[in-house]
């Protein structure tokens, strides 16, 4: 069975772009979320192998959602994908337990490598 991914981003165009990047790798997009609260709910429901998480989102931001998902499952894999390129946010996300951090606008290859790495499918 292919590994499952949840995409959390408030911009539908980014969710579409990520789907186009991820699907050819053979992973299954099981759900999408448009804010941090929805991401937590969808995580509980689908228990995906990986979450791609934006930071600036309405209702609940990506850092808060990351924190709550890791409380639900300390082994959860969450890849942060955000336009915020600030040391404070990067350090905070990694300290909380994010698997990796990619800055938008992203390059397709970079996202694919980070996802494969997070899921243990990347060979050097």
């Amino acid at each position: 069975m292919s590994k499952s991914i949840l995409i959390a981003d408030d911009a539908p165009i980014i969710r579409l772009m990520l789907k186009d990047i991820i699907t050819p790798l053979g992973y299954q997009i099981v759900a999408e979320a448009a804010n941090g609260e929805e991401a937590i709910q969808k995580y509980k429901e689908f228990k995906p192998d990986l979450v791609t998480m934006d930071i600036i989102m309405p209702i609940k931001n990506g850092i808060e959602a990351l924190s709550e998902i890791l409380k639900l499952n300390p082994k959860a894999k969450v890849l942060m994908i955000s336009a915020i390129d600030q040391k404070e946010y990067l350090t905070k996300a990694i300290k909380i337990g994010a698997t990796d951090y990619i800055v938008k606008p992203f390059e397709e290859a970079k996202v694919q490598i980070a996802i494969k790495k997070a899921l243990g499918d990347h060979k050097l």
Partner: protein
Amino acid sequence: MNESKNIKFNKTVQLITKMSLDMASVVFSKLTKTDAKIIIDKIYSDDISNISENMNKNSKEVMASLVNLVGDTPMKFLFMVPLNDSLKLTDLILEKKIGTHNEFNMYVESSVQEIGNIMASAICNVFVTTCKIKLVPAPPIVMKDFSSTIFQEYTFDLAMEQNEMLVVESHFDLTNCGINCSLFLLPYLESNKILSSIEGL
């Protein structure tokens, strides 16, 4: 770059503004896969009523992304693109032939939303790195209306607090794409005072 006689921006603020808009150019080019350059037209301060009056003269129907930059030096960010050009921007972002998108759907709105988010974030990133202040964007709001209406609505809370407004007005130079976008950066007067006091850049 023109400067008004009423200028209140000092050299430091001008430099940071230029650096942040250069960075916004870079991310915009990367996102739209174009050779885009943001050109600063004017940095000026004026009465809010005068600014609104000028906006009314050249009002056209646009799609806009409005972002509040929150932190030590609050500002407002506004990206506007004429309706038809927003379709072209969507094609560019999705790497489709220009003309593929011919109706307004959630992806068109979302393109403008995300351009706002990415450029506003880039601006915040430069302010944080160079000035060591805290500044992050709030989630963008997308609006489709006349530019004068959007501008008025967006500056309403600024107008409640101050009579004058500082404006960084700019347009985009997109080689061979025929897209006309504009960007406004509106720092609160208090923010300008804080930025002006920063030395040693």
